[in-house]
């Protein structure tokens, strides 16, 4: 049982009014004080009985894109033998948002289910609850909270936009020679022997099969390694404002999700030290999105843009995508890692994205063949990406 701030105010006013009314002889103030005390007592009488109910709250789905509905289901039951008057179930949602459900009165043995929507306006991992059952008076003066049930976690992912997965692999045998120093020399998996079509490598003709079938047959070699996708999200707070960073995370999530679902081996890096390597698939996408869900900006300005992990050994090769903002001269450092990747994209998100402030990626020396996209927000960046990648 506790007085709300309003209740405390009313109590103080009542004491004050009675004191002044009594000392100065003003009956009207005493009447007001009496009415206030009466309403407070009525509030206490209403709130004094704790709700004797069983309550369970589930949240589903527990991972949801920003803006998509997440529902909480509240199951209340009255195990007692008396009718249980109505009460309010209350809990905290994201960033202190108050969620309240008015539970109607329950007959003995009765059960009721209530659904309410959890707000998913912002990205992040949120703790929903703990659920609090409380009886309050209609004037909001007195309440008696009763914690019931545990907390639940709601992951609000960044919004995912439809993105084409990049079609780049990790060629171990490049006609220009080895691009990575960890490639196995001479390895190429024979996947099939098929009929020759014009344009096939003549060196791959399978003469024995040709002799047997009487048709030109050719060996079909496939790169044994999976296609690879590496994404570097620039989390330094100096390059992106808060809103721009949300757009950048949204873009990064869309890209990495598309790549992971398409089966690419994915690696997610940030300057603040996050480094997650996954195989492709839905499970991998979930792990990556969990990381991106909690990603925040890193205030340390002196931190280099390119994490040391990217320079060392690890999953490299394939496609490197850098999602950044007003990175400036830091981008030159990418030239160091450029040789390890077959293709490289630099995506700038922000109202003054790359190019607009004169620091275009193309102009940076030592980053050959990096393609750049500069867009004001994630939607524009995704549409430009889809044009570029097709």
């Amino acid at each position, binding site marked *: 049982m506790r007085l709300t701030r*309003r209740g405390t*105010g*009313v109590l103080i006013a009542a004491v004050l009014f*009675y004191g*002044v*009314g*009594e*000392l*100065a*002889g*003003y*009956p*009207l*103030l*005493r*009447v*007001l*004080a*009496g*009415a*206030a*005390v*009466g*309403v407070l*007592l*009525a*509030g206490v*009488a*209403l709130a004094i009985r704790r709700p004797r109910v069983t309550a369970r709250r589930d949240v589903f789905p527990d991972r949801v894109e920003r803006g998509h509905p997440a529902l909480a289901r509240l199951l209340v039951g009255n195990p007692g033998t008396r009718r249980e008057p*109505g009460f309010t179930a209350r809990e905290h949602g994201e960033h202190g948002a108050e969620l309240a459900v*008015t539970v109607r009165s329950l*007959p003995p043995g009765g059960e009721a289910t209530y659904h309410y929507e959890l707000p998913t306006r912002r990205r992040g991992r949120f703790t929903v609850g703990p659920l609090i059952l409380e009886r309050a*008076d*209609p*004037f*909001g*003066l007195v309440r008696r909270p009763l914690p019931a049930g545990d907390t639940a976690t709601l992951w609000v992912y960044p919004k995912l936009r439809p993105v084409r997965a990049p079609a780049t692999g990790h060629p171990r045998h490049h006609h220009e020679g080895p691009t990575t120093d960890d490639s196995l020399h001479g390895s190429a998996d024979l996947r099939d022997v098929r009929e020759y079509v014009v344009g096939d490598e003549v060196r791959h003709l399978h003469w024995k099969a040709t002799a047997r079938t009487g048709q030109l047959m050719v060996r079909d070699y496939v790169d044994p390694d999976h296609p690879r996708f590496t994404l570097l999200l620039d989390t330094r707070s100096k390059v992106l404002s808060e809103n721009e960073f949300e757009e950048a995370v949204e873009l990064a999530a869309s890209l990495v999700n598309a790549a992971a679902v398409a089966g690419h081996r994915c690696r997610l890096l940030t300057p603040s030290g996050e480094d997650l390597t996954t195989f492709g698939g839905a499970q991998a996408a979930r792990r990556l999105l969990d990381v991106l869900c909690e990603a925040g900006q890193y205030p340390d300005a002196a931190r280099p843009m390119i994490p040391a992990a990217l320079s060392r050994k690890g999953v490299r090769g394939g496609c490197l995508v850098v999602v950044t903002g007003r990175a400036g001269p830091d981008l030159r450092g990418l030239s160091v890692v450029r040789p390890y990747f077959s293709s490289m994209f630099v995506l700038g998100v922000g109202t003054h994205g790359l190019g607009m402030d004169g620091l275009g990626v193309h102009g940076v020396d030592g980053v050959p063949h990096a393609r750049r996209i500069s867009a004001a927000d994630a939607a524009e960046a995704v549409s430009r990406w889809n044009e570029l990648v097709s």
Partner: protein
Amino acid sequence: MTPRAADAAVLAAAAIGGLLFAPVFGFTALLPPIGVAVLAVFGVTELGRRFPGLVPWRPVLALAAGLLAVIETVLPGIPAGETLAALADGAVNGWRLTLRSTWPARPEPRLLSFVPLAVLLAGTLGIELSHRLRRPLLALVPGLLVLVLSQAYVAVTGFAAVATGIGYAAIAGLLLTTGRGTALPRLLKLITPGVVLGVVGALALMAADPLARPAYSLKDDEAVPVTEASVASPLAEIAYRGRNPSPEVFRYTGDTPASRRWPLVVLDQFDGSNWSPGGGFRWLGAEVAPAAGIEVPAARHQAVVEVTGSSGPWLPGQTSPASATGADVLVDEARGTLVAGQPSPGSRYTLGWWEPEIARDALVGAGTNHRLPGGFGGLGAVPPSIDELADRVLPGLRPSFQTAVALERYFADGYRLATGDDLPTGHGWPQLRRFLLDDKRGTSEQFAAAYVVLARLKGIPARLVVGYRAPEARADGVHVVRNGDIIAWPEVAVDKVGWVPLDPAGAAKQSGTAAAVGVTAAVVEVRTQLPPVLENPRLPSEESEEDGAAGSWNWWPTALAVTIGLGALLVLWSVGVPGLTAVRAWRRRRRDGPAAVVGAWAEARDRLRAHGVRVTTGMTVRDLAASATVFGEQTTVDGLHSLARTVDAALWSGTAPNVATEAWSAVRTVRKGLNRRPWHSRLRAAIDLRVLFPPRGT
């Protein structure tokens, strides 16, 4: 409740504070400016809702519109510099001028305008607090300050205080329930305990008044400063005026007072040598109620008075003045003394006054009133010989009006009124001692002063008044009052009648021959009935009872009436609902054919509704049977199934079987099952009001 209603509540709370100034200015004078100002603020708030761009300017606009509204209602006409100056003067000085006037004050702009301006400020501030801070309780604070200010002027008491307080609390409660999104029926159910306990608490704390202090008013500390430096006491002028009788002092047309006297000044303070008036003066407002002490019906009289001679700052008035129009007049409310606001020799004013209307024998056996101020205004150092005289004149007599008249008779019989040129003067102890013990000859000055000191020594509240006799009218109806008409006389405070003038010198008798009326007639009656030797009069039997209850509102009859009313309502409810249900069942059973079966179905349905089963209009009997299983009473369910069969037979078989008896026996089975429920459920079902109305559609 909508935000619009919340705005209305904030403004209504502010307006209530302003309207509580009604005893000061009158309700009709306050309602237009306050009402229009509040409506203007509400209009601007609505405008802000319609055009959100105006919201930053809302307080400015509201104040401007409200100011215009106040100007147009208080100072009608086109607003000009003068109007604004008058309004500013009212805002700055109005509160003090109001405190220096009698109430109800004249509803003049310079007095009244501070109230609507305060309401306007409170309303605007409240609206801004409510809209910007979203704290409804805080939005009420400016209005509350106006309310407290109104109480500091004049406190509401008794029933009005309870009604106003509960009304104000209701407005605050409405404001607190806004924006919670609770449906109205549920909200009503939830706030009922708050309303009941709030009313009970209000009545309880209203009655809980252990200190029982009188209401403090700012008015108590305020009076018009009157310079008394060069004022000669009219008492000292009696001898002089008696020697120069012919100059005219004032003239009047209209009613002649029943006492046939025009009091000029009341002198109730005596320090042994001088008699002086006490008390503070106020501007005479619109109307003054009958003076304190007059508890009998009072009639209003009126006369036009024109002061032609010199009477100092004092103006001829009456014991209980009601109004004075035509000149600025200050009044001492406790004594009725009038003083000119600005010294002007030829002031002319219409004086209204109150006179107690009493029967001829009303003063016979009347007691004295010790509570009236000024009755015991000091005696200085009383010479022992005077003390002895007082005991000799009224030996062992208790103070009463009869005793006072006996004292008057003592003076009339034993003392001579001085006439001619050699008139004694003085009214201090030495002069009084000489008059009482040695000379036994004096003017009305000595008679009155000696009477007052002897009366006070014997415990009779008395005061000294100087004024003029009312002479006979001339042929044109004008009464001309001259120097020679000046007299002094004592007045005695009498229970329920107030101050009653006596005439120990017999000086007033010379004024005309008209038949005595009113108080004078009653005094004459007491004089004629006065026995030669006085005994202590019988004490009025009910005197002791009145002491405690005087002035405070008696709660018990009201509380008793409320309790009886509530009890009667409770009895009516607990007896009426089962009675009506029984009558309805009887009428249903008496119907013919299928209608009786339908009646049986309706009866069973209503019985189950009373027990809390949800019933809608579309339900069949079998639906109801399914719903009724929640009770776990198989008898009820069986009864309903058997009722269903009879209903089917009666309505759908096409023949017209006589199944009414079976149907009603099924109803009995249903009721038998319901009777096994716990007693409190059955009690609740028996007095459920909702069953008297048909079920709702959903």
